[in-house]
């Protein structure tokens, strides 16, 4: 479970995120969408513990991120859009490092399985500089999945992946949700969001403009009935006028 309550983040005079509240239950996939600069990455980085909220609380699997950060982070995996890897650790060593930090007792057994699943088995001794952009992204994903997190936060996870990788990643996200993980997925690929997400949170200028399943969002706004997700998104974020139906 991921529970965010009244999340607010200020950078000096600038309000990046304001009074954002939502929950993601185990098995749910929340799609976080919004135009550039809406506050998506700030929200995700706050949940991952990279930045501290100015106000509000974040709970990961019942652990308050502010008061019990270690317990909360142990149950969380954050996969950023740009993989940040240690250039001096091999693929396998990244996983061993992650296993030790997260206390994964059976890491040795899980690592080969993950490497095969993400098609990195023949690259286990390679350094990140010897990997393509897509492979580095896969390695970041593998590190995120190793400790079987209860909460999975993904920021544009498909960036750099080839079509086969995208298909596999979609299946992986769905499988993790089915296994009981609470997933937040931020992406500009609205067809992916539509396919995978059970709920949608649309934010604009740091504030939530819509929250719920697509059906619920449309039901609350009759003028959006019959529109595709892309048109719904554009209408909600006010970038274009709602097309006539």
């Amino acid at each position: 479970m991921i529970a965010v309550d009244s999340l607010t983040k200020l950078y000096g005079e600038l309000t990046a995120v304001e009074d954002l509240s939502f929950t993601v239950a185990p098995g749910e996939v929340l799609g976080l969408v919004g135009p550039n600069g809406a506050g998506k990455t700030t929200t995700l980085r706050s949940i991952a513990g990279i930045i501290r909220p100015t106000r509000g609380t974040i709970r990961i699997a019942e652990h308050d991120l502010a008061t019990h950060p270690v317990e909360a982070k142990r149950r969380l995996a954050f996969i950023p859009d740009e993989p940040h890897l240690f250039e001096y650790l091999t693929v396998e060593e990244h996983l061993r490092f992650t296993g030790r930090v997260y206390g994964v007792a059976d890491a040795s057994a899980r690592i080969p399985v993950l490497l095969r699943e993400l098609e990195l088995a023949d690259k286990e001794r390679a350094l990140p500089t010897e990997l393509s952009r897509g492979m580095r992204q896969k390695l970041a994903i593998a590190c995120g999945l190793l400790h079987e997190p209860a909460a999975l936060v993904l920021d544009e996870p498909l960036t750099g992946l080839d079509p086969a990788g995208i298909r596999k990643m979609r299946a992986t996200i769905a499988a993790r949700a089915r296994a009981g993980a609470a997933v937040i997925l931020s992406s500009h690929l609205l067809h992916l969001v539509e396919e995978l997400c059970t709920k949608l949170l649309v934010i604009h200028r740091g504030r939530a403009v819509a929250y719920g399943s697509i059906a619920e969002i449309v039901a609350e706004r009759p003028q959006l009935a019959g529109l595709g997700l892309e048109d719904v998104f554009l209408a909600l974020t006010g970038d274009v006028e709602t097309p006539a139906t």
Partner: protein
Amino acid sequence: MIDAFVYLTRTTLRNRFASQLRRLRNPRYAIALLLGVGYFWLILLRPAVQPGRASRLVWANAETLAALGILLLLLGPWVFKNERMALAFTPAEVQFLFTAPVTRRQLILYKLFRAQIVILLNALIWVFILRRSGSVLPALLRLVGTWMVFTNLSLHRLGAALVRTSLLEHGRAGIRRQLPAIAIGSAAFVAVLYILRDAVPAIRAAESAEEIGRAIEWAATTPAATALLFIPRIIVGPSFAQTATEWLRALGPALVLMLLQGLWVVRTDFAFEEAAAQASLERARRLEAWRRRTGRPRVRTTGKRRTIPLAPLGVPAAAIVWKNTLLMMRTGRLGSIAGLALMAVIISMPAIQSRGMDGRFVAIAALAMAGLLVVLGSRVLHNDLRQDAEHLETLKTLPLSGSRLVAAEVLSSALPIALLQLVLVAVAFVALLGDLAFPLDPGARSVVLVLMPVLLLAVNVTTTTIQNGASLLFPGWVRPAPLAGGGVEAMGQGILATAMLLITFVVALLPAVITFSVVALSVRGVLAYGWAIALLAAAGVLLLESWLVIHALGRRFERMEPSERG
């Protein structure tokens, strides 16, 4: 194109200065700046001391010593593979300039132009640092002299880097083209070995500073040395002139050398471009090679990749030490440290066997090096948060408390430094085994050796904590890698940073010194080696202080935001 480079440099400097000014709104930065300015103000206000006998003696030999130093710095780029730093471009420069319709020569001119900012700043710092060195020359003339020394060195390093790159990329053709430079470099290197062969016995036989000075001067007058030091003496000439006339006379040759080196750098590039068989393909390949040259230590991608086992369960923070040790292995730093330790042992072997005065010489040298590492170890080895600064976001997502993470990072640097010092102390101990006349009796030496692991760990944890503290408290000031070039011309800032480290270290030592004094006085006459208990207590105080600071730094790490690094 020059206009664009000037614009880029001017706006970069202006914006950087503005952002530093904005940073001063933060009380932490403002207080630190006030303290720093206050410290230098006090030094400046202190009445100037007339150079004494020792100072005059140093000055008399300084020109020769400086020329010798310059010679080594000129040879360095040919012997050590450091062209990476000389050709380092920032990622933004790579993205905008390498893809722009800019020739390689223009890029090199831009590089020279940017290097001047660092050179000028450091020339100012050096003139300030050496203001009481005994020179009677006006500060402005000394500034110009220092600027010429650094510019000459910078040009030489860049030229050597280009030659080496050319050699790497063009194989035999490159060797033929660069034959004169290679021949001069090799001959100089051999000549240095000859000079050392003559000078070292004389220096070792010297019994006073005057005799050491005379031995150096004598070695410098041999024909090989005179020829070798010809260029270095030209470079340092203006800096060591005693009158304005002497300065003016020395300026001409130094200026000509600077222009010749500038021409060499540009010509090297010209030859490089001209020789490319498939210009466009070759250029893309070369640009890619340039792209890889960043300011950080390069991870070896070739050769057998050895690893260290890591159990999946155990103290999670140990994984941080594990990964940092792998970094040291793969950047060759661990090898360098082990090499230094091995060298210390090998050099000391003959002395250990003879057990005479040579033994004492080795012991003092080993102890001096161990002492020097107390200050310089943590300045040179960045195997901690300073190195990990670029991975701040990843580190912050790990399920580790800030204090444990900072402690693991600190230990990653402190442990290898302490280990190297321990080897040096052990070498000194063995070298002194037969020397009963040494001030410390053999029993006391054994006690010190037993205590050393704890003492060295405490001292190095303290210095490394200070360094990591600076990078956490002032992320906008402490940068993980130099902005440009490096080399002696960028050493001025390093000296100031080392001075600040020393001052903080002395402050941190005070409680430990007080503890030592109190405990030593309490047990004096009661226990045979009471001072050993006092030393342990002092080490304990240092470790306690460090732990308290690490705890505070851990909280700071948890609150720190990646945007603060600026």
